């Protein structure tokens, strides 16, 4: 055990893991977080707390993670390289560990131009791989990035993201390998709507044996409407939403119900792919859908491991 987190336990004991996502509010109201945590509690092994997702300012992911943990739900704190240099990141990680955070997802981060402060200077002192490497050395070698030693090390279960739909396709697998080498113990993927392409990607992952070195959680999520699907298809970089999906939602009499049905179909398909160790359900601002999805996908109850 690297961290002793619930998520790490679930995965290492061979269970099919379920993680969800919880977006902090654009305010400092803790009740919003608490409400969402209550909804998700018992339906996921851990929940990701996003770090100023899409470069929009929100409550800090570490603080939100602590609130969530108080509610009895295990957080996966996300950490991006956009807003902090290596000094700030290390400092924040020490703080997070001191507050009991055990899971860390390391990301480069969406570009500041995507968010609500496009004039901000992007830091990008490190990239995601360099971040993973740094966190692993902090934990395993008890060293700061500069090489200095520390007495008590932060013990994180280190995660990273992967996007099977970005280009160049083949290179994304190489990049995954680099992340694994750097120290990524679990991987959460971009939202999957093109299962065929994901399966091809997984094939390459398996060929490189990466699925044996890291836990791969397939990113899934319900879509509320054909309009939302079309938006993701056309406007969101790094997303691959096939036309049939848009058409399927378009044709549905109750698009929301169809969106959940679609998500369940995809879960069923990705579960069958060798090397997929769990799913990561992204239902941002639709957290209430997570229990239904977990239930109908037959993923309940969640295992309790001591």
């Amino acid at each position, binding site marked *: 055990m690297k961290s002793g987190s619930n998520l790490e336990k679930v995965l290492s004991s061979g269970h099919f893991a379920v993680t969800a996502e919880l977006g902090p509010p654009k305010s400092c109201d803790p009740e919003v977080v608490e409400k969402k945590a209550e909804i998700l509690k018992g339906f996921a092994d851990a929940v990701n707390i996003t770090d100023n997702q899409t470069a929009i300012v929100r409550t800090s992911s570490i603080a939100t993670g602590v609130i969530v943990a108080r509610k009895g739900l295990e957080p996966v704190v996300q950490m991006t390289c956009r807003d902090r240099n290596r000094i700030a990141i290390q400092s924040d990680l020490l703080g997070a560990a001191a507050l009991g955070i055990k899971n860390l997802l390391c990301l480069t981060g969406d570009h500041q131009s995507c968010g609500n402060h496009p004039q901000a200077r992007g830091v990008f002192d490190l990239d995601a791989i360099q971040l993973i490497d740094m966190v692993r050395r902090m934990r395993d070698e008890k060293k700061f990035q500069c090489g200095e030693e520390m007495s008590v090390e932060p013990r994180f279960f280190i995660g990273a993201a992967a996007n099977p739909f970005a280009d*160049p396709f083949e290179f994304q697998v190489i990049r995954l390998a680099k992340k694994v080498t750097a120290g990524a113990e679990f991987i959460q993927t971009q939202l999957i709507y093109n299962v065929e392409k994901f399966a091809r990607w997984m094939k390459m992952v398996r060929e490189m044996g990466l699925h044996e070195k890291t836990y791969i959680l397939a990113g899934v999520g319900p879509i509320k409407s054909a309009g939302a699907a079309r938006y993701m298809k056309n406007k969101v*970089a790094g997303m691959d939403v096939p036309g049939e999906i848009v058409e399927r939602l378009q044709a549905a009499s109750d698009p929301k119900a169809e969106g959940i049905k679609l998500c369940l179909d995809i879960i069923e398909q990705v579960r069958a792919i060798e090397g997929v160790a769990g799913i990561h359900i992204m239902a941002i601002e639709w957290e209430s859908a997570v229990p239904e999805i977990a239930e109908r996908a037959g993923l309940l109850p969640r295992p309790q491991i001591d």
Partner: protein
Amino acid sequence: MIIADRKPFEEIKELTSKAKNILIAGCDSCVAVCLASGEKEVAVLASELRMQRKMDGLEGEIEEIVNVRQCENEYVDAMRDKVEKADLILSMACGVGVQTLAERFPDKLAYPALNTKFMGRPVEPGVWKENCEGCGHCILHLTGGICPVARCSKSMLNGPCGGSQGGKCEVDPEIDCGWQLIYDRLSRLGQLDALVEIMLSKDWSTSWSGGPRRVIKESAGV
């Protein structure tokens, strides 16, 4: 070379509104080659200002001068006669030129008429793109001759982010994904292996982050 672009006239009008005699100083170096300065752009701006000032009832003369490089003391010093007659030097050089003027003529106002943008090159007539941000430690030998520091929006060193799609950057589909270009070029050269290596944290102290920099060539010292 250094690529620059003229400031909007509205802004130049503001900058010059209090001055009487104005000397517009162009530079025949990088900024002329990227068509932001040189005798012609100086004359165009001078003509615009003369007309605007006449309409606004402002007095004074607009003079024009262009020198070889506005970032060299000797060339700038040769402007002295004309500078003396002016209240304001409106520089159509890059930021380096403006600062040279300010330094050589400590009692004169030297204002910029251009926005200095980046180091780059023309990719087609009328279009210039950024290639180098002067980070101080070149790694082009590792990345197929394409700079990830300047040409990746996040200066990532280990490959593209998840926003790379169809060879384009998530920031703007007009921007090529620098990493796609690196990948394509190394794959053409059969050197994709190089990308498997993890590139560790970059030493940014050689860049602007290390404070204003200088280069010393001992042998060139007089």
